[in-house]
């Protein structure tokens, strides 16, 4: 590959990381103010609306909840979300805003999709342009893209308050956190982003699909002449914005962010990547701010950045070497299968890393067609638990569970009952961290085992051999960790996968969420232990490195055998020349 391409790609990566890092503090402190219930510069515009919502819903904003009340509120709200989305999808044939007259979803697909959007996963077994009405896309799916993101952030706030408060009982008010997160953070960011995306060519309308004539007619698979193209339409930009901002990832169209109507230019691509990382990165600062030491937030940011750059470099390297099997056929350079020309290699691998390191799951290239190691990286980023910036809220709370485990072992190694941010880490914290960190991995291992023993599930693989195994592994990794991207060759719209993936999404989302709240409930009751020389400093290089090691080792040890039989052996086969 030409050297100047590498330079431009490096420039793009550097620009992204610099801009992201510069935005961490302003956005992070803004979000801290939002969740502290303080006035912000948007208050003049939004406070009346906020107050109106509280009035209509009869919410007393000063009434604080303990962890159980908080958890119950969260579960009821999300349960309600599943019911509503499920109903809308099944009944969309009778609902308005359906110019293409799409019929209702089958019940298993409807359930899968409802769970998928409520859990912030956005795993899509349906093809948007061919199955979902505008009503479903906007009022069911997009609304959940806001609400699932806001509820992930709310849970994180409860955990942060668990660290920040001491000898207390309550963790805040779920309804208020949910409302403020939606109104003050997600909506303004999405609005700005959406309008910018329209400027780049992302469509935004409620028109029926447009029929146009092809410049040159072609033949279809059956040999019939095709002279027309039907262009799908819809309010794409609005959804595109929250899809990235809320790390949802559910595209309006089947091809997701590879689709020119979702991601038309290199700049829209760059901005979408930035949007994916923005809130998760900013929340590290919010966290540091709220626990009283922004250094603690930066430490976590650095650990995430470190993992991100490591993953990105591996992915870039793997992809830049291309596919030797294809090269042998006389096609030099990188593999373009599944990639878009306009994004280039840099824009493609950057998107893949960002979307899988967070729980976004939007894609601008087809991960199924990446080289084996190129596919291993997104898979591994997902399997690590979506913590490399992570999903909005969920990324940081999972990361904090890793921190708890890392602090625990490191604390023992320096001869102290481990403490983090002045809170002693004891049996309860250990149980809950283990649930938060390992539940998704356990779901993946069990569900993959089951799938491999079900002939119907094996038949759904699009690719043979080791790559087929990777597809199934990726499917459950993605759903259990609420990512939503796929090795999309797998035909996942079957009863088996719809239901198994729905189960994986529910377990992977709510088991950790409840565990986070339980841990917050335990932490908030503890008294504050001031740091001394004997306290492990968690904002310094040695601990950050240790944290990264713990994350990588837990991930590697859990998945090494199955990865060896999937991407690793495929890589060896590819290099060995079949």
């Amino acid at each position: 590959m030409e050297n100047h391409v590498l330079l431009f790609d490096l420039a793009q990566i550097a620009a992204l990381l610099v801009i992201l890092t510069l935005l961490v503090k302003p956005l992070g402190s803004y979000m801290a103010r939002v969740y502290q219930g303080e006035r912000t510069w948007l208050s003049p515009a939004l406070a009346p609306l906020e107050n109106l919502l509280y009035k209509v819903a009869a919410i007393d904003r000063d009434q604080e909840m303990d962890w159980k009340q908080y958890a119950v509120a969260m579960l009821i709200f999300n349960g309600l979300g599943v019911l509503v989305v499920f109903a809308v999808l099944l009944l969309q044939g009778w609902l308005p805003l359906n110019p293409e007259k799409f019929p209702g979803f089958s019940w298993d697909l409807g359930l899968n999709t409802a769970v998928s959007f409520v859990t912030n996963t956005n795993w899509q077994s349906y093809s948007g342009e061919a199955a979902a009405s505008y009503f479903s896309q906007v009022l069911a799916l997009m609304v959940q893209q806001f609400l699932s993101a806001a509820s992930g952030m709310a849970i994180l706030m409860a955990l942060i308050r668990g660290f920040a408060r001491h000898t207390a009982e309550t963790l805040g008010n779920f309804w208020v956190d949910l409302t403020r997160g939606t109104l003050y953070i997600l909506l303004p960011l999405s609005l700005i982003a959406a309008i910018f995306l329209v400027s780049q060519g992302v469509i935004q309308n409620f028109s029926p699909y447009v029929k146009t004539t092809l410049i040159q007619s072609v033949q279809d698979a059956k040999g019939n002449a095709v002279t027309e193209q039907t262009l799908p339409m819809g309010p794409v930009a609005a959804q595109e914005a929250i899809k990235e901002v809320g790390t949802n990832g559910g595209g309006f169209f089947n091809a997701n962010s590879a689709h020119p109507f979702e991601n038309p230019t290199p700049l829209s691509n760059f901005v979408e990547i930035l949007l994916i990382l923005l809130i998760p990165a900013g929340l590290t600062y919010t966290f540091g701010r709220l626990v009283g030491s922004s250094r603690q937030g930066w430490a976590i940011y650095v650990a995430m950045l470190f993992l991100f750059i490591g993953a990105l470099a591996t992915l870039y390297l793997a992809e830049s070497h291309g596919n030797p099997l294809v090269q042998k056929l006389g096609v030099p350079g990188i593999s373009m299968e599944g990639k878009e020309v306009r994004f280039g290699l840099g824009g493609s691998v950057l998107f893949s890393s960002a979307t899988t390191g967070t729980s976004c799951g939007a894609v601008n290239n087809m991960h199924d067609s990446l080289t084996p190691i190129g596919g291993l990286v997104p898979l591994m980023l997902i399997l690590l638990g979506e913590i490399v910036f992570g999903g909005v809220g969920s990324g940081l709370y999972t990361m904090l569970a890793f921190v708890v485990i890392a602090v625990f072992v490191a604390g023992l190694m320096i001869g102290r009952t481990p403490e983090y941010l002045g809170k002693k880490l004891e049996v309860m914290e250990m149980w809950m961290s283990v649930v938060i960190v390992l539940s998704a991995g356990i779901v993946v291992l069990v569900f993959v085992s089951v799938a491999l023993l079900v002939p119907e599930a094996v038949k759904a693989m699009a690719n043979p051999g080791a790559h087929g195994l990777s597809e199934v592994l990726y499917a459950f990794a993605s759903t259990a960790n609420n990512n939503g991207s796929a090795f999309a060759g797998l035909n996942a719209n079957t009863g088996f996968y719809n239901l198994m993936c729905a189960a994986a999404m529910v377990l992977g989302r709510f088991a950790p969420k409840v565990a986070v709240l339980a841990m917050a409930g335990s932490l908030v009751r503890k008294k504050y232990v001031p740091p001394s020389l004997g306290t492990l400093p968690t904002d310094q290089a040695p601990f950050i490195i240790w944290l990264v090691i713990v994350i990588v080792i837990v991930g590697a040890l859990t998945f090494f055998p199955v990865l060896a039989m999937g991407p690793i052996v495929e890589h060896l086969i590819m290099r060995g020349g079949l």
Partner: protein
Amino acid sequence: MKAIRTAMLLFICLTVTAGVIYPGVVTLIGQLAFPRQAMGNLVQKADGSPAGSLLIGQPFSDPKYFWSRPSATSDFPYNPLASGGSNLGPTNPDLLKQVADRVAALKASGLPGPAPADLVMASGSGLDPHIRLETALLQVYRVAGGRGLQEDRLRRLVQEQAEGRQLGFLGVDRVNVVKLNLALDNLK
């Protein structure tokens, strides 16, 4: 239970806010500020008949046209109702067979040198309107032959139609095949 009532009321409120007001505002601003973009960058032929969208690629097989990338959409290539890639894995024999066939077809068309990757491997969306600038230039001789045009003139056209890096560093040098072929048809 009070929490259920609260949840329902808040759910309705937020659905209205995020599901009605928000997309409404985006549509309004989008349609007013960027009407062409919001409607999909539709283009017309010289005679005014609709010719698709500048963003959505189209299939070309005639030697008179610049060829676009292979598309793996179902039913027919560049079917916008079935966007998506082939999802063939790197070691899948089907992929290797497809690539080998396309390489052979390009060779048969007289394409000099090694086959460019974007002409033998399908895009992720199946609707990619672009090919790399070099890939377009490689096809100049064939289109020139097909249309009886001078290669230099065509090469100039391609260069005129080329899109550079956005902001000077984003993306790659590329050509929009739909736009290029429309311009080609408008030539003379």
